[in-house]
Structure formats: structure tokens, C-alpha cells
């Protein structure tokens, strides 16, 4: 059409009145917001590791949340088929790397059960001390980083600073800060170095002071309370069928602790300790329960230190260990929850099959149910309060 021509007359008559309602409809369509899919992770500061949470949002409210795990799957159960027991110990240190010693204990207990030997009492006590030390180490990190997820920058540093003392203790005894690799079938690799018990006592004082600081700085903070009270309530009747365990379940009021109930292991039958529960099931109570458990662990350590018997550190085991055929299931109260190992042995130097029941895998399975209808900031708070480790989920 050349530009010199006039515009052709339109045969279509415009009805302004009808057009007006169409204009309104246009605006309504634009204002009607659709759902937004937000990918939290796998690289995200709030998801402790490579957890991907595909969240469907309506504004800031979550409609559905799907956790996608497996980004850190290392094939542990397959790896254990081709390794000997001492080699597997080095592997399972790295399942829950913040409390590595606690991972070794159930596996070694399973192997010892299959062999029918018992670790000497001194080894049992020292194992208890080191397990509780790793519990303190990982909970101090939790107390700090949950403050961080909720927005306070400083508690995280206090958590790391006080954790250093505990890690130094573990290093002085075992040689490794994070991956002690200290358990052997029949006992422990080495005895404690000179002066360790006195050092441990003074460190427990530091830990108890740190817990008081966290209580003032985080628990007592009204803003923290406003952010965590009533958020992410897990009723006991829903949590237990999902497999939620450990402090998460105790924060919902369930009085269940494998150190005291079921089959007590290590030195716990001789010790006098309290199991902490909280009636609400929200994020605040999960923080509170873990704070009390940190204090309780410090007290357990002090009790153990008072009562360590003298004696050998290792039972009589042959040089090349061949575990007789059989199968056994051992579960323990790990810092993250209930961890279990099902070991099938066919009489070789390594197990035939190891099935690892990790606590965080079941704790995370409740997320799709738990995250419906919460706000995005509350998603972060809930993730922080459940306290899972990706190595524990994916193995």
C-alpha cells in the first residue's frame, strides 16, 4: 500500500461500549497471577549442600514443594561391597561429615556383633566420649547456622568458634578433626594422649558457656521467636510414620531416644542422662531441644570422664579379620537422628552387603507435606530447623 493513498474505509463498526468491557477483561487477565516455579538449589546457601527444592509459589506462598536429591550420591552401598572393614570405616566417616565419629560406631558394633566379640570397657567409654563430642560439635554448628538462616549473622561465628575447641580435642585423640577414622573392630586404634581428660573437662565448660550465650542471643530473641514459633509444626502422629527421628521427633513430644530405649549401646546403660522433649512441634522447639541436648551431651562427657576404667583399648582380634557369615542390624541415636546399618557378611574380609539407613533421608521425606502453604522465608527456617546433611541423605 503506498503512503499516498488514504486509509481505506473500514467495514467493521467499532462498538465502544462493547470494547470497554473487553478492556477490563484484558486488565483482569494481566492481573491474574499464575504460579511461579522457583528452584531452590542445588546451589543455595540455605539448603545444606546440594538439595534441590522445586517449589511452586503463588505470590510468596508455597503450593507444592518437591525435593530432588541425589546430587551428592557417591554410591556408598556399592563401594562397601569391594572394601575391607577398615577401608569401609574411612568411607562411612564421610556420610555425616559433621559428626563423623558417630557414623563409625554402629558399623563397628555390627561387625563386632557378627564376630561375637565385645570391646573392652575402656574402649566403650572412650567411644561414648567421642560420640558425644561429635554430637556437641555438630549441634554447635546447628545452633549457629540456624541463627544465620533466620538472618542473624553473629551466632554462626560463635558456633564455629566454640566448635574449634571440640575439634581440637578430637584431633588430639584421633589425629583427624573431621574424619577421625578411629574405630577398629574390637576397640579403638589408640589410647588417649596424656592430659586429654583435663583438656576435655575445660572444653566442656566452654561448651556450657556457649550454650548459655546461644540461649541469650538466639532463643531469647523476640524476633527469632516470631520467626520460628508455630512454623513447620510436625505433629507426632505424622512425623513418626514418615520416619522422622532424633531431635525432630523429640521436639514434637515423642519421648524416644535410642540411647536409653530399645537396645542401649556403648556406655549409655551406666550413665544417667535426661532425654529432652518439647510439646510443640515447631522450629523453635527443635532449636530448643537441640540446645538442651548439647548441654546434656556435655554433662554425659563429664560423667564418662569421671568413670573411665583403666584397661586395654582393643580386644584380641586376629591380624587379618575375617568376619564370620551372618547378618545383623544395628541402629544408634546419631546427632541427625536414627542411623542404622544392616550388614550381611559371607565370611570374607569385607561385608557382602551393607544397607545404610540414614536419618536425614527420612527427615527430608516429610518436606512435601510440611511445606504446603508456608511462606518462602519460612521454607528456609524449616529447612534449617530440620537439620539434614546432604551426605547423609544421598550417601
Amino acid at each position, binding site marked *: 500500500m503506498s503512503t499516498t493513498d488514504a486509509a481505506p474505509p473500514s467495514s467493521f463498526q467499532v462498538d465502544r461500549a462493547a470494547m470497554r468491557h473487553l478492556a477490563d477483561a484484558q486488565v483482569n487477565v494481566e492481573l491474574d497471577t499464575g504460579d*511461579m516455579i*522457583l528452584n531452590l538449589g542445588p546451589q*543455595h*546457601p*540455605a539448603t545444606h549442600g546440594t538439595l534441590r527444592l522445586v517449589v511452586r509459589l503463588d505470590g*510468596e506462598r508455597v503450593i507444592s514443594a518437591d525435593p530432588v536429591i541425589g546430587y551428592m550420591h557417591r554410591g556408598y552401598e556399592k563401594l562397601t561391597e569391594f572394601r575391607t572393614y577398615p577401608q569401609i570405616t574411612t568411607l562411612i566417616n564421610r556420610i555425616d561429615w559433621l559428626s563423623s565419629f558417630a557414623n563409625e560406631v554402629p558399623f563397628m558394633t555390627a561387625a563386632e556383633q557378627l564376630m561375637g566379640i565385645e570391646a573392652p570397657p575402656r574402649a566403650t567409654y572412650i567411644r561414648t566420649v567421642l560420640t558425644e563430642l561429635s554430637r556437641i560439635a555438630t549441634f554447635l554448628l546447628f545452633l549457629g547456622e540456624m*541463627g*544465620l*538462616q*533466620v*538472618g*542473624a*549473622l*553473629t551466632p554462626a*561465628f*560463635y558456633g564455629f*568458634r566454640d566448635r574449634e575447641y571440640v575439634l581440637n580435642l578430637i584431633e588430639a585423640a584421633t589425629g583427624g578433626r573431621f574424619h577421625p577414622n578411629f574405630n577398629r573392630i574390637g576397640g579403638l586404634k589408640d589410647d588417649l594422649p596424656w592430659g586429654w581428660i583435663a583438656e576435655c573437662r575445660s572444653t566442656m565448660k566452654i561448651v556450657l558457656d556457649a550454650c548459655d550465650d546461644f540461649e541469650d*542471643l*538466639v532463643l531469647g*530473641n523476640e*524476633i*527469632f521467636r*516470631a*520467626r520460628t514459633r508455630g512454623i513447620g509444626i510436625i505433629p507426632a502422629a505424622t512425623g513418626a510414620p514418615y520416619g522422622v527421628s532424633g531431635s525432630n521427633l523429640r521436639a514434637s513430644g515423642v519421648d524416644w531416644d535410642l540411647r536409653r530405649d530399645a537396645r542401649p549401646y556403648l556406655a549409655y546403660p551406666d550413665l544417667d542422662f535426661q532425654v529432652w522433649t518439647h510439646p510443640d512441634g515447631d522450629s523453635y522447639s527443635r532449636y530448643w531441644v537441640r540446645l538442651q541436648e548439647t548441654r546434656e551431651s556435655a554433662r554425659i562427657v563429664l560423667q564418662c570422664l569421671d568413670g573411665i576404667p583403666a584397661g586395654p583399648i582393643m580386644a584380641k582380634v586376629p591380624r587379618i579379620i575375617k568376619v564370620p557369615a551372618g547378618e545383623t542390624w544395628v541402629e544408634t541415636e546419631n546427632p541427625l537422628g536414627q542411623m542404622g546399618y544392616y550388614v550381611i557378611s559371607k565370611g570374607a574380609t569385607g561385608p557382602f552387603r551393607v544397607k545404610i539407613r540414614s536419618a536425614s533421608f527420612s527427615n527430608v521425606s516429610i518436606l512435601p507435606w510440611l511445606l504446603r502453604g508456608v*511462606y*518462602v*522465608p*519460612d521454607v*528456609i527456617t524449616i529447612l534449617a530447623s530440620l537439620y539434614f546433611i546432604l551426605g547423609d541423605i544421598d550417601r
Partner: protein
Amino acid sequence: MTAIPTLALSIGWGTTLAIKTLIILAIIPLGALILGYVFLLKMMSHMQSRLGPMDPGGFHGWYQLVGDGLKFLQKEDIMPAQSDRRVFAAAPAVVVLSTFLVFLVIPVGPDLVDKSLNVGVFYALAVSSLSVIGVLMAGWASANKYALLGALRAAAQLIAYELPLLLAVVGVVIQAGTLSLQGIVLSQQHGAIFGFGGLGQPFILTQFFGFALFLVAAQAELTQTPFDMPVAESELVAGYMVEYTGFRFLFFFIGEFGTAFGFAAIAATLFLGGWALPGVHGTWADILGPGVLFIKLMAVAFLMFWVRFTYPRLREDQLQALAWKVLIPLGLANILLTGVFKVAF
């Protein structure tokens, strides 16, 4: 010292304007640097049981932020492919512009003010809210869902907390009787506490509610914890600024800390007496004024940053509830009480 205006007349209008502009353009990054180093790098570190930077520059790492600034300047300028290029580029400029405009009215001495407006306080508050536009522009133009979430949160929050800020200031205005910042400082200098005129009358004594309200609202205006939902580091990883790199991010950083400097200066002027020192007048006030204001400003900034590093952050709806249901009624009550006392005494 009347020499300055005379000097200004003899230099000429254009040169005076250029000099004033350059002074403020220099003060903004310098103020941001000082605040950033003293509070963000050193005070926060010591509150967290660590040392902060120690190596750059030799003496306790004073060069760290300068080095950071230079590093930002030489970085690659990355723009997301789907972003709105012009809006993306303009957003940091808008934020820094609002900071610049605030500094125009802050008096640092009886004769030292860039532009003494009769409605200084009104102007300062109005102009500081321009940064909302910049934040929205940044969030939208980033073509990133996280940025958008952060920007929307920021817009709602910044608009909500304008009102408590204003209401806190109205109390001071009623007491001073003038909207001009210079006038407010002078009324504090010449005031009297129960008849004792030696210390003047800093308004913090009578307007302590207003001071607290102003600090809380300023904290929210600067999107600092406990009101830093828009920049929630552990959720949105820098919120509306997440797609900005290099010198554009430097602009945002300077804008944030420059505005903190500006708000602290305004708080010091409104409540602590600004450049005034009891018993110092005339030429000495012109010489000592900037230093005195700086000290008072750092005290206010200390409070702001102390709170920033200690508290967790409020959720967006709790934040809004705090503004609308708690702070605004408190501000109105403060105005009522101030008015009653002003008329009665």
C-alpha cells in the same frame, strides 16, 4: 565566617556549583568507605570474635575497601541476556542519585551547607524515597525471579516505613518550630534544659521515642537487618542486586552505605544537635562543625550497625505488621504528646 559567601560571590555561580557538587560526590564514597571499614569490616568482625582484614595497607587492613572498589571497577560488565538493558543500567544511578540529593541539605557548620532550604527536612525525606524506584528498576530489569522477589519485597517495605520515619521527624519539627535543618540545629544549640542553657537542648532528651522510632524506620529504609528481607542473604542471595556485577554493584554498595551515612547524619542533626557544640560559635563552629557532626554521626551509626549484626530478620508480613500496627500509632502518639507539651510549656 562570612568570608565563604563573599568568596562564593567573587568566584562565580558556575564554579561554586561545580565545587559543591564535587565536594558531595567526594563525600559519598568517602563516607561509605569509612562506615564500611569501621563498622562492617572491623566492628562486625570483633563482635564475631575475629579480626577482619589485617593485611591490606599494613595497618589493620584499612586499604581493603579501596582495593575492593578498584577490583569492582575493573570487572567485566555482565548483563543478563534477557534483561532490559537501559533500565538495568539506569537502576544503580537512580539509587546513588537519591543519596546525592540527600546530602545537599545536611549542614556541617553555621555557614557550611550545600543548599540551605527552608523545607530541608521535608526535602531530605522526600528525596530519599527515590531509591525505591531504583530498587524496583533493578529487580525488574534483572530478568531473574529471585531479583524480582527481592525488589517487590523492597518496594513494599520501603514504602511502608516512610511513614514512621516522617512521623518521628514531625515531633522534632514541632519542637524546633522550623523545617529547615540549619534552623533545627540552631534551636537545639540555643535551647535550654529546664532553664540550664549550658548544653543547649539536644532533642534526644525530649524526643527519645522519636529517636527510637527514627532509628527503627531508618534501619528499615536502609534494608538492614532486622529488616533486610529484600536482601536476605541466605534466601535470595543479594535479592534485587543479584545480577549486578562490577561497577554497577559498586554503585549499589556505595548507595547503600552512602545512604546510611546520610541517614546517620540526619539523625545526628535532628536529635543530637548536628554540628553544634555547647559554647562554640562563629568561626570555631565552622572549623569544628564537620568533626563534631562526624563524631555524632558515628555514634548513631554504631547503634544502627550494632543492631544489624545482632538480630535475625523479620519476615515480610511481620515487618509490615510492625510498621502499620505498631510504629505508626506510636509515631502519632508521639506527635500528640509533643504538641501538647509544646503548647503547655
